[in-house]
Every structure is written in C-alpha cells, then in structure tokens.
C-alpha cells in the first residue's frame, strides 16, 4: 500500500469519495486526516459533490414491456367444508311384509294352473276316499269315472277321479282294494262338503287303454294308461249349494299304484302332496269367503 503524504492525499480523498479504497487504505487516510485538519476540511467539501440517491420513476414504463406477463392463477385445492352433510343415504328399504294369504292364494292358483295343464306328475290315478283332498265346486267339465268289479259287492273299486275344472280340485288317486264305495270327494278341510255317490248299483264303469304322455319333472314320459270310465248318478250337494251336472265323469291319467309317493312334481320342483293340498284348501277358503261376501251384499 502506498503511503499517504502531502502529494498524494487528494487522490486518496477522491478515491475515498468514490468508495474505491479498501479497509487498510481507509484507516490510513482517516489517520492522516486526523493529523491534518485542513485535509479534513477538504474532504468535507469533496463529499458535498457526491450526489444523493434519488428515487425517480420512469414514466410510461408499461410501454417498455414485451408481451405482458400472463397472470397465471395456480389452481388451488378448495375443499368444501362439511362435505359429509351432502351425502345421501339410501333409504332403508322397507321390510317386505308378505301377505301370506295373498301369496298363498297366488301360489295356489299358479300351482293349480301348472297341475291342470299337464305339469302334475303325481299319482294320477287316485282313489276317492274320505282322506282325499278334493272338492267339487261348479264342475261343469268334471268327469268322474269309476271302475268297479261288481255292482253288488263293490268290494273293489278302481275308481279314479280327476277333474278338469279349475274350480274343482278333485285329486284322483287310485287305490286298490277299496272295500266300500261311495265315491267321495271332499273339500279342503271340509269333510261335510263332499259329494257322495249313493251306492254302487248306480255306477256304470268301463275301461279303455290309452298311451298318454305324462310329465315327470323334465321328462316327458309316455305311459300306457288305462282309463276307466265311471258313470255315476247325480251327486247330492251340501248346503253350500254347489251345483253339479249329472253324469260326471272322472278320468284317470295314470294307473300306477304309488300310494307311497307323497310328492308332486310342479315344473322342476317337487312339492309334498300334503302341503300342496294345504295350499289348495287355503285358496279355496279364500275364494269361498269372497263369494259369500258378495252374496250377502
């Protein structure tokens, strides 16, 4: 570093004003100024020539920009408060309360239709006995056919009763070795309302063999069947005013003896005969009540 003296101090002063001195040079100069007051006065006069920084704003600065800065709005994640309140809960489905009687009635009608039109695959041959669950109501098309061995003894009866009428729910089952005739057809749970053939002497029977297809589940089976035709006297009706045409013929569809078979094939389903009869009884009771109500009105 150059020593400060009377010949070079002004250069140091100007450089000091220009802020071009390092720390060592600044200390040396200040020390020299302290020793020489006149140099100090000259330093102050030179400092007055230094311009103060002024804040000046350029007018019309906007014209200087090229392609103004695009305002980019950064996507912000806005979360809706209390979002849970917007959710909708599925209405709890009301429990389905099945009206059993309606269901039973509809089921009974459906089953009857299925059975009526050849889907029934139970023991087609049946025996009209006091244990059968059949009932004749307005049987226009019912045919009762019975075959008896003798007219006097009437020890055997192969009477098989079927009914084609929807209203009549006669189920015919063939039963061998029946010692008694009368041919009975009872209603569902109503023992009193059944038809009775008075005596065997009034019955006329004949037998013919046919090959009739029967439905056994999904199998259509063609079986040779024997059809027995029984011509009976007009059947006396009970107080329920049931009407029945004379000379009803019950036609058998199957001659197989299957008293042990307790099931009925309805379509692809196998239904117990007792339950099946129970449904029919309930349906009959329902329709009977309705009819009574109408008659009362």
């Amino acid at each position, binding site marked *: 570093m150059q020593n400060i003296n009377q010949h070079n101090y002004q*250069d140091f002063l*100007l*450089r000091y*004003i*220009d*802020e*071009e001195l390092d720390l060592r040079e600044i200390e040396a100069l200040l020390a020299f100024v302290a020793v020489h007051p006149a140099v100090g006065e000259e330093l102050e*006069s*030179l400092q*007055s*020539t*230094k*311009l*103060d*920084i*002024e*804040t*000046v*704003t*350029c*007018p*019309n*600065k906007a*014209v*200087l*920009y*090229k*392609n103004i*800065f695009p305002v980019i709005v950064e996507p912000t994640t806005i979360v809706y408060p209390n979002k849970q309140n917007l959710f909708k809960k599925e209405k709890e489905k009301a429990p389905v309360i099945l009206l059993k009687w309606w269901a039973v009635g509809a089921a009974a009608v459906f089953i009857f239709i299925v059975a009526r039109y050849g889907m029934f695959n139970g023991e087609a041959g049946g025996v009209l006995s006091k244990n059968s669950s059949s009932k004749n109501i307005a049987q226009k098309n019912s045919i009762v056919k019975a075959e008896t061995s003798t007219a006097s003894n009437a020890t055997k009866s192969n009477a098989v009763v079927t009914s084609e009428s929807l209203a009549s729910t006669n189920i015919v089952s063939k039963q061998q070795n029946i010692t008694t005739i009368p041919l009975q057809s009872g209603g569902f749970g109503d023992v009193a309302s059944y038809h009775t053939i008075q005596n065997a002497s009034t019955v006329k029977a004949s037998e013919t063999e046919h090959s009739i297809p029967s439905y056994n589940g999904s199998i259509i089976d063609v079986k040779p069947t024997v059809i027995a035709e029984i011509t009976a006297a007009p059947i006396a009706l009970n107080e329920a005013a049931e009407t029945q045409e004379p000379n009803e013929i019950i036609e058998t569809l199957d001659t197989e003896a299957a008293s042990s078979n307790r099931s009925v094939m309805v379509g692809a389903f196998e239904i117990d005969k007792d339950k099946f009869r129970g449904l029919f009884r309930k349906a009959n009771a329902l329709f009977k009540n309705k009819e009574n109500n109408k008659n009362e009105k």
Partner: protein
Amino acid sequence: MTEKDYNESVLLYADNVYRFIVKNLRHTEDAEDIVQSAFEKLWIHKDSVETQKAKSYLFTVAYHLLIDHTRKAKRISLQESFENDTQTAYQENKALKKVLHDALATLNETQRSLVLLKDYEGYSYEEIGEITKLTTDQVRVYLHRARLKLRNYLISPQQVL
C-alpha cells in the same frame, strides 16, 4: 435472455436508466425516448445479452444514445430552451440539490455521466470504463476532475452569496 428476463430487466432497471438520462439531459421527454430506445435495443439483442449483464448493457446503450443526443442538440442549439421550459425541465425541490444540479450542468457529457454512474449506480471504475469505453485510469482521472469542478462551483463566491 428470455422474454421473461427482458421484462424483469424493465422492472428492475427502467427507473435507474431513466434517472441517469434525465439527470444528464434535464429533459423528461427526451429521457423517455432514450430509455425506450435503450430497451428496444436490448430486446432486439436479447439473445446475445446475458441476463447478468443486462444492466450494464442498458446503461452502455443509454450513454451512447445520450452522447449522440447531446451532440445533436448542441448542433440545434436548444439547450437554453430546455432549461427555460418549465413543462419539461427537471424540477429541483431543494436549494442544495438545485445548486448541485446546476453544477452538473457545467460538466461535459462524459464527466457528468461518470459522476452519475458513480454516485447513482455505484459502478466501479472498471465498469464505468466498459460503459463509456474508457480505461480505468481515464475514468478515475475524469471523475476526479469532475468532482473538483463541482466543489469549486459549490464554493464559488456566487454560490455562497
């Protein structure tokens, strides 16, 4: 330099360049023209100018435009009309500042520019030399002479009285 860098340069240095020019010219409209020309030149050559050197480039361009303008103005002899034009003259609010402003007017364009670059922008001798195309020693000597001239103007008997 990208477009974004250029616009940032406008934001950062437009006021400074304008102050430098308007202090030299003491004429706002001419100063605006020079500033616009300087930035326009920067925009044209933005691909060859680094972002870090944008300020020195602007002042270099503005200084040369200033010199050109001053020389042109001298030929036209409109300097006095600028001083008397109250609408375009640079207005000094304080007496000391006005005296100093008047003292700057007594300097030539180079000395005045050196003083302004040194005091307003804080450039070093080397940087001023790059802007004004002078050597470091020349800058130092010219600047010292300018300050002594300013001091002599301030302590002159006319100013004291």
